[in-house]
């Protein structure tokens, strides 16, 4: 489980689009499980699932359940296997009452749960989540987080998550990559970021121990980290 963060405009979504084979990088080389995402697009996308929090992949006018069935055929999933996966996802994400509703009638929280199920129906090895909790209320955020954690632990799905909600990162990610200005600023555990920020403050302040550091919220840590690297959005 990897958290991928950076200020607005840092290139998080673009990176995901390149990793998913949607965009062709202008330069450099990408390889995932031995596949070049853009050149081997059809083979690659069969093994990944993607959720863009700000877009919808389900068909607006189709009931959720019909959309799932269409995805089954598009991904050529075996019908029995599909039924098992779908029922499991429907149970875990509490979608029972939504299956007959057209997507346009769902609330954002309901839709996001349906979107996540849609991205996992073909049992991908890797799941890319681009701001999956954007705009969600607290219970929905918790439900999404809880589900993602279980998918990662129980199914062994690799998850790459971008978000601006640092509680997502703290709750989920074992490893964090921070980018800004086109560079990797950090690649470590969340605690590593906290330590870096604390060290920098001590050096600046000349204070050996800063009581404030201990209780610093994760938002404060990230804000200071961006500021340290001059990476805050202009």
């Amino acid at each position: 489980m990897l958290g991928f963060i950076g200020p607005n405009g840092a290139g998080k979504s673009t990176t995901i689009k390149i990793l998913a084979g949607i965009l062709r990088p202008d330069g450099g080389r990408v390889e995932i499980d031995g596949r070049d995402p853009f050149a081997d697009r059809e083979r690659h996308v069969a093994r990944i699932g993607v959720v863009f929090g700000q877009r919808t992949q389900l068909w607006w006018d189709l009931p959720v359940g019909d959309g799932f069935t269409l995805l089954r055929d598009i991904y050529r999933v075996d019908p029995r296997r599909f039924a098992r996966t779908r029922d499991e996802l429907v149970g875990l994400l509490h979608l029972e009452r939504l299956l007959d509703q057209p997507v346009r009638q769902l609330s954002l929280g309901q839709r996001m749960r349906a979107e996540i199920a849609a991205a996992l129906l073909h049992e991908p090895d890797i799941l890319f989540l681009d701001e999956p909790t954007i705009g969600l209320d607290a219970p929905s955020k918790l439900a999404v987080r809880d589900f993602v954690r279980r998918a990662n632990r129980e199914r062994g799905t690799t998850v790459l998550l971008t978000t601006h909600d640092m509680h997502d990162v703290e709750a989920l990610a074992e490893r964090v990559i921070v980018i800004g200005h086109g560079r990797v600023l950090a690649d470590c555990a969340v605690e590593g970021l906290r330590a870096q920020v604390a060290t920098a403050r001590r050096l600046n302040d000349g204070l050996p121990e800063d009581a404030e550091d201990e209780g610093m919220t994760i938002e404060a840590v990230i804000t200071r980290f961006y500021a340290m690297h001059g990476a805050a959005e202009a």
Partner: protein
Amino acid sequence: MAPHELVRPYVAAFASRFLQMLQYRTAAYAGFATQCWWGGIKVMVLAAFYGGAAAASMPLSLAQAITYTWLAQGLLALLPWLGDPEVAQAVRSGAVAYDRLRPVDAYALWFVRSAGWVAARVLPRVALMLVFAGVALPLAGLDEWAWQPPAGVVAGVGFLVSALLALLLSTSFVMLLNIVAAASLNERGINALAGPIVIVLSGNLLPLSLLPDAWQTTLLLQPLAGVMDIPARIYFGQLGGAQALAGLGLQFFWIALSVAFGRLAMGRTMRRLEVQGG
């Protein structure tokens, strides 16, 4: 991969779009009403035109020209004068990114969806038109203004085959419009440009055989004849036997060419694709 597994995504995408579009009944009735109204006007214009000319020297009789008009009005939604609005919307909203995530041929996926969209708009409208102009008008004693049957059984079957090819040909043009919409991020320009050209060159405005003699070869060979005029000529037996086969071959040729060109253009567009914003 077994053949039915190979085509499964495309069949499902076609069926889903087709069935979904069939639900828009009010749009079908409204379209039908408009097409009857315009059809009526065109029939009256044709009648006046035939009354003032030496009808015997015309390549189509008045009854045939009237039948052509009803046929053309019924098949109006078959004309490739608009890109697929779902594709245009996906381009505007960036949902096109999700289309790139499906493990299927990207051109073929859009093609079958657009074909489902076209077919679901044509079928109810042409059925209603047939009932109105082919059944109701004769029953009302307006035989001479009615939709007449095809020249024969062979002409009828040939017409059905040709109409099916017209669906594929039209979809391959719709795909070109889709690709231009994707490349220019907006569908309006290309739609405005396509409309008048398609209406005239398909034969919808006036049967192509009524246009000047000197233009006839060019008119018949140009690609848009295949979406309306060639099926109609086969229906009337103007193209019979070997000529009908040549007509079907010509449709097939233009399908192959515009699919090949569309795939090339789509590949180029997708390499340059930018999906902007979060």
